[in-house]
């Protein structure tokens, strides 16, 4: 998924002082996952479902892709939330470390068109705020809408 400024994607990149194989274990072995993310009953098999015990409730996950030690991808569904997708990309650096890229996408997908509309409406709202006071103008607006 490209990062083109859409608001439903969070991307984070960092360099870690450990080789990909070690980072992979930290991302997939339950006792390690519990120490940096949340208690989880995960296994590294593709298609495997697991549940993260988050601080604000459970998060249901399913492994979509697991290519040791390069790419780990799982679905992420918070209670009441949309189906989102988290991917961890691991690339070895020359210094013997790992460049880790986390992309969490689909965070607001059902609401994406709405977010775009809100950008437009937000402008209208601020324009409206500037000419606050003359409520006569506002009272005329529906007549215009009906004529249209």
């Amino acid at each position, binding site marked *: 998924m490209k990062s083109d400024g859409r*608001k*439903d994607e*969070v991307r*984070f990149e*960092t360099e*870690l*002082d*450990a080789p990909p194989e*070690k*980072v992979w*274990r*930290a991302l997939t072995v339950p006792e*390690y996952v519990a*120490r*940096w*993310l949340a208690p989880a009953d995960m296994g590294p098999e593709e298609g495997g479902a697991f549940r993260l015990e988050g601080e*604000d*409730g459970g998060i249901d996950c399913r492994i979509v892709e697991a290519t040791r030690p390069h790419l780990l991808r799982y679905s992420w569904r*918070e*209670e*009441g*939330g*949309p189906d989102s997708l988290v991917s961890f990309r691991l690339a070895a650096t020359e210094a013997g470390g790992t460049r*880790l890229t*986390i992309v*969490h996408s689909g*965070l*607001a997908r*059902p*609401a994406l*068109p*709405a*977010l775009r*509309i*809100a950008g*437009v*409406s*937000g402008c*209208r*709202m601020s324009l409206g705020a500037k000419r606050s006071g003359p409520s006569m103008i506002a*009272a005329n*607006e*529906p007549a215009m*809408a*009906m004529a*249209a």
Partner: protein
Amino acid sequence: MIDAESEIFRALADPTRRAVYQRLAGRELSVSELRQGLEISQPAVSQHLAVLRGAGLVGERRQGRFAFYRIEPAGLAPLIDWVARYQAFWPERVEKLKELLKEMDQ
């Protein structure tokens, strides 16, 4: 996830409701105006509007026996906050991951 957010997701998960919401972009419309171009009955439109209003996404203004509907731009704020929360979440977790990597055996 807090209730306001899940309500927004629920409200916008329905394609017809999303279409109703999109038709209100940039203008205020009555129920009958809203219905034009959508293949649904007036009661169905009203029902979708009720859900959208319940989620704080759409506002209603009454004038005499007419009611007009418009988008509430502030209605999506909880959702934007939610995305922002994840923007903070992953860097925080990665800090913990770095600590863990220091403690792990090679």
